[in-house]
């Protein structure tokens, strides 16, 4: 422990032990525990106690829990647990009889403090930390703590109940560690007493008639089989599985959700799944016993397993697909989905099961679509994957939702009534449809997909969130659309679709909802990035109102939309898809005006997002040597840097430095590049050549910006500047070696300015700089040291243990004044 902290600790312990001095901030105690945990993990807790006897004194007031506030009491219980995690320290505390009085009946357990969930939680967490060695197990056995933990499983606080379950698993694991090293006994009756007690409790709970008790037992087992893969867990499962199987005989099956979790955790366990232990039969039986909404997650879990019998996988897949089969049947389509023909599934889902109520129908369909979406990208998904029927089902659901499907059966009519206008199902179906773009389907179905997407994109009834999903799905389908054998252009269907879509896009760009306009612009940016070079698309786009509207959106009242419009215009311009110049006499006039417009946004927009978007576009333009930039790069960089360096948003300033770095790299070459055309000063370049190489940077006032940014109040800006200057110094190293000592009036004034800036005075500009002075200052600056200091996060000092102790001590005295406040 830091000596400064060690000095403050007794005072802090005195404050904590004094009930008249409440601790101001909950977070302080948490952070204090974090610190003790770090110290204990790094060294000896016993030594910590011996060197800081105030800690033992601090633990003593727990013996009078009524005097302490619940949170301090909980803190002390947790602290004792952390310290007693090491066996020697545990013995030390035992000698003082402290632990039984903390965690036993004599402690808070029997008192009024126990009613506070914080104290119960602290008690459990303390025990959990402490239970790390055999002595702790003996202590638990003798103190009767295990029985208390059993009762806390049903605690009114979710947090306490859950922690109690985890602690049981932890104790069971630890008590089985010693015997498990050899061969596990086949009979839990021969297991250690503590383990027997816990297993007995689990058995009893599994036999209980009350569902909460069954749930608790199942949750404990789930946690255990998920985290512990020792051989003895197999013995335990063999022992308990008949009881679990008995649950399936009840109607309804109790705690179905927890049961599914347990069976899947067992199936995932490498120890258990390999030997099966009747597990697959239980899983098959469970699949057929549960309701559709409960069986879905189990089916998905089974299908995600790496190893599993084929028949079970087939059954699970059939269960998962049942709702979609039902939809296809209801709309008199041949389902063609596995398990749907001839009723091979154990419990084929009838329309009645899907249609008891709108809420059930919507819930089940959303769940199924989400499960299939999760399953599809996995390598272990069922093969062959029924692309076509799934596509058909997704399209049908979307049609039922927008009312374009014509139901021919009663079930279909019901479905139509339930799903019409249902945004939840629309969103889920569009997500799934987008995922299905990864596969192949018959052309007829693909045509249907594009048709339904167009319907959604066109429909005035589509909600903003549905539209966003429709745009995403569309983009996915367009991207996966195969290129025609001739190459070059888009596949004819996709091309036709895009041509039909472009007249729709303007409507979306004029939507009164900002999110719709924004989604439209994001879609446009992506499509232009992807197909901006293809003739068909270019032609259709230029013939539409889209470019003009996009430009208008640069002045949108919503800043997010302005930022997206900037990105879209940047992309359009890069692809030469910006509006054709109005006057043939002034070629390029419009292009110039876009640059001016973006510069105008950069200088005047009141929000950060559009200004940042402009900087991204400009940096990209510089990288891609955009025509307007290439015409006079230096002039362009100078103008942008002048504005960006003054920006109030530090992300814009940081991006300004990024643009400056690109400019540097383009002029001087990449840090380790061997580009033959770059103007890199050779190893022993004459000073005049280096000075010449640096002149452009002086002219664009890059150094003024970079040096000033070095002391920016926002750390990322300073870091960026530091990196930039280090890069520059590496490039000019040979030159500065030749120069010898740095002196001269320029250097002195520059250094003086830097000192002023470092002191926080930002007022004075640098004026014209000479390259020689820059090189000299670069050499004299401790840039590595600065980079090291900046690499530490800004709050490393404020969040240090010393700072924490000082704050807690300082707050103790003045608490009354500021106690009740928040934002």
């Amino acid at each position, binding site marked *: 422990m830091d000596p400064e902290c060690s000095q403050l600790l007794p005072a802090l312990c005195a404050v904590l032990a004094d009930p008249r001095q409440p601790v101001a901030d909950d*977070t302080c105690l948490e952070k204090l525990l974090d610190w003790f945990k770090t110290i204990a993990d790094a060294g000896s807790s016993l030594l910590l106690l011996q060197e800081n006897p105030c800690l033992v004194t601090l633990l003593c007031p727990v013996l009078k829990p009524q005097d302490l506030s619940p949170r301090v009491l909980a803190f002390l219980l947790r602290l004792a647990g952390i310290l007693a995690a090491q066996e020697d320290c545990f013995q030390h505390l035992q000698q003082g009889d402290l632990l039984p009085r903390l965690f036993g009946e004599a402690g808070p357990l029997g008192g009024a403090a126990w009613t506070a969930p914080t104290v119960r939680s602290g008690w459990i967490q303390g025990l959990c930390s402490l239970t790390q060695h055999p002595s702790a197990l003996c202590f638990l056995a003798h103190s009767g703590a295990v029985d208390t933990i059993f009762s806390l499983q049903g605690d009114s606080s*979710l947090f306490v109940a859950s922690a109690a379950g985890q602690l049981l698993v932890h104790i069971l694991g630890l008590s089985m560690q010693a015997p498990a090293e050899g061969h596990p006994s086949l009979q839990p009756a021969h297991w250690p007493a503590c383990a027997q007690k816990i297993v007995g409790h689990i058995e009893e709970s599994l036999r209980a008639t009350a569902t909460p008790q069954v749930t608790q037992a199942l949750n404990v087992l789930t946690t255990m089989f998920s985290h512990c893969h020792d051989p003895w867990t197999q013995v335990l499962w063999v022992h308990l599985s008949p009881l679990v199987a008995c649950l399936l005989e009840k109607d309804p099956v109790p705690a179905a959700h927890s049961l599914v979790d347990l069976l899947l955790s067992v199936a995932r366990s490498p120890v258990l799944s390999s030997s099966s232990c009747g597990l697959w039969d239980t899983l098959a039986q469970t699949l057929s016993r549960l309701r559709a909404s409960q069986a879905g997650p189990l089916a998905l879990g089974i299908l995600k397993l790496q190893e599993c019998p084929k028949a079970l996988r087939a059954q699970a897949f059939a269960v998962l697909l049942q709702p979609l089969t039902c939809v296809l049947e209801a709309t008199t389509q041949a389902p063609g989905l596995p398990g749907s023909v001839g009723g091979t599934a154990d419990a084929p889902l009838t329309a009645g099961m899907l249609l008891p109520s709108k809420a059930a129908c919507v819930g089940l369909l959303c769940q199924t679509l989400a499960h299939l979406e999760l399953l599809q990208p996995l390598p272990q998904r069922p093969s062959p994957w029924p692309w076509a029927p799934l596509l058909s089902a997704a399209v049908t659901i979307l049609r039922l939702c927008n009312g374009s499907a014509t139901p021919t059966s009663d079930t279909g009519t019901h479905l139509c009534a339930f799903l019409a206008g249902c945004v939840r199902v629309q969103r889920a179906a569009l997500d799934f449809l987008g995922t299905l773009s990864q596969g192949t389907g018959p052309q007829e179905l693909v045509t249907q997909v594009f048709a339904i997407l167009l319907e959604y994109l066109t429909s005035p009834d589509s909600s903003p969130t549905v539209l966003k999903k429709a745009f995403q799905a569309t983009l996915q389908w367009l991207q996966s659309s195969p290129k025609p054998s001739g190459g070059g252009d888009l596949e004819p269907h996709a091309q036709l679709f895009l041509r039909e879509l472009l007249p729709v896009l303007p409507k979306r760009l004029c939507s009164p909802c900002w999110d719709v306009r*924004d989604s439209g612009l994001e879609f446009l940016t992506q499509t232009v990035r992807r197909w901006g070079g293809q003739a068909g698309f270019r032609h259709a786009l230029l013939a539409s109102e889209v470019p003009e509207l996009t430009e208008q959106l640069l002045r949108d009242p919503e800043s997010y939309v302005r930022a997206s419009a900037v990105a879209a215009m940047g992309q359009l311009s890069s692809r030469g898809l910006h509006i054709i110049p109005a006057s043939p006499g002034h070629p390029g006039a419009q292009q110039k005006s876009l640059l001016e417009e973006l510069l105008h946004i950069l200088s005047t927009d009141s929000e950060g997002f559009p200004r940042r978007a402009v900087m991204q576009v400009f940096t990209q333009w510089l990288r891609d040597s955009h025509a307007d930039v290439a015409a006079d790069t230096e002039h362009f960089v100078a103008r942008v840097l002048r504005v960006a360096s003054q920006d109030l*948003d530090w992300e814009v300033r940081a991006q300004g430095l990024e643009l400056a770095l690109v400019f540097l790299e383009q002029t001087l070459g990449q840090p380790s590049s061997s580009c033959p055309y770059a103007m890199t000063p050779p190893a022993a370049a004459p000073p005049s050549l280096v000075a010449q190489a640096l002149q452009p940077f002086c002219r664009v006032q890059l150094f003024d910006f970079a040096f000033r940014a070095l002391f920016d*109040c926002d750390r990322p800006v300073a870091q960026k500047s530091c990196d930039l200057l280090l890069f520059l110094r590496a490039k000019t190293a040979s030159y500065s070696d030749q120069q010898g000592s740095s002196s001269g009036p320029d250097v002195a004034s520059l250094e003086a300015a830097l000192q002023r800036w470092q002191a926080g005075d930002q007022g004075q500009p640098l004026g014209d700089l000479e390259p020689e002075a820059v090189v000299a200052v670069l050499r004299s600056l401790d840039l590595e040291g600065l980079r090291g200091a900046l690499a530490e996060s*800004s709050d490393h000092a404020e969040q240090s243990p010393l700072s924490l102790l000082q*704050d807690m001590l*300082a707050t103790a005295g003045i608490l009354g004044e500021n106690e009740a406040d928040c*934002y």
Partner: protein
Amino acid sequence: MPEIRVTPLGAGQDVGRSCILVSIGGKNVMLDCGMHMGFNDDRRFPDFSYITRNGRLTDFLDCVIISHFHLDHCGALPYFSEMVGYDGPIYMTHPTQAICPILLEDYRKIAVDKKGEANFFTSQMIKDCMKKVVAVHLHQTVQVDDELEIKAYYAGHVLGAAMFQIKVGSESVVYTGDYNMTPDRHLGAAWIDKCRPNLLITESTYATTIRDSKRCRERDFLKKVHEAVERGGKVLIPVFALGRAQELCILLETFWERMNLKAPIYFSTGLTEKANHYYKLFITWTNQKIRKTFVQRNMFEFKHIKAFDRAFADNPGPMVVFATPGMLHAGQSLQIFRKWAGNEKNMVIMPGYCVQGTVGHKILSGQRKLEMEGRQVLEVKMQVEYMSFSAHADAKGIMQLVGQAEPENVLLVHGEAKKMEFLKQKIEQEFRVNCYMPANGETVTLPTSPSIPVGISLGLLKREMAQGLLPDAKKPRLLHGTLIMKDSNFRLVSSEQALKELGLAEHQLRFTCRVHLHDPRKEQETALRVYSHLKSVLKDHCVQHLPDGSVTVESILIQAAAHSEDPGTKVLLVSWTYQDEELGSYLTSLLKKGLPQGAT
């Protein structure tokens, strides 16, 4: 048994990261999704694993409602929607939707870029999250789905803050978020109608406090600023971008105008312009005075408050600067503080709460030697003042709101346990309702007895009217009919209509009785004697002797049979419908008296 269940994941007996789960009528709603500014790790967010264990989040939760833009109420939202995976609807008011991203963005910048934290949400995530928001108007009933509806009420506190009523069928819960029952310089007082919810979930920050008049605090604030400026000092007021800052700006602007002061007032990082934009846009959310004067003069177009430039901090002479962030933990406010801290003429006024670890917290706790980055020690000689301008209802205000809404139960959140305990007793005594104060993770379950709406058929009403009784709202009246459930609706109709609609035939309910009669004659003769006797007694009724030997009087049927054991006794089987119950009873009692000797 229907019930309402409430589980706070945050704000249960504490202040910070408000997040309350409510289950009502089978629907699950999350109220607020806040973060704790005092933590730099996962503990800053509510523990959502308690929801995810119920399956997919989007399937489990029907909606998320955000009460206002403060980070302890919305700071975890992008994490929840973009990283944990919630893809359902999020409801908040229009101003909250507009301002939320600014504060989230500010916090993201500090967390990710300044502190170098990984695994934090990005700008794009904030935008994607905001696209899931459905903005609502005050008093607009929004249908989340067929059964669940929500409605926003004005809460004061900050621009756009709202209380929400959540309703499923006849069950309802009101969640107040943070609210203020007294108007301030720029906002009005919270208000809710007498909606009588099953449960009112209310904040209780100032559960035991009766706050002094805000006027006193304002006067004190102005006095201190004025004194510092008069002695040539510089005043730094660290603030968060939107909210308290605007209130203080109005205060200073008015004071400067009145006193004709010349010292400049600055507001950092271009926020005045942004704030003005939002206050203009949402002028209806401000208080009456601002709305009234808006036509002549926009209160948010300040004459004395100018945009701050970093270079101004070094200008000689007095000045007042509002700078962000509010806890002096980074950025411009910290930079100016470092510059001015060494001069005892200067002053820093902290108008709000600061979490541990920030410079704001340190100076408020009286520390005067601060270790800054690079082991530098900064000596604070400037005057440090704390003035709470947080706009929460005090104990009186909370009681007032409970009185306004008339809930059946009250549940306290967003406060300290000890203070809640006091308020709980007060509420229970004064309003005779149950009051709860669950800790985080504790579930409160309230059984409800929902009233079921029943429609009455026109035919039935017309029949009632035909009886000449006009409906009177003040006098409840009994109405007889048949209750039928059709298409999940209850209706009260006449029994004939019920039979017709349900396609059922009417059942006949008959009472039967055996009367023993001493008569040695044959059964037919006994029946004839009964006929003659009744014919003579019941002159106004239709008495018939049927060919099968039985006798009828209206719907009453009488048959004579021999006694199985006593040949001298005959048994009369009398049966009648419930419509003729009176006559049936009369006849039975008549027959029990025996037949007159002379009857043949």
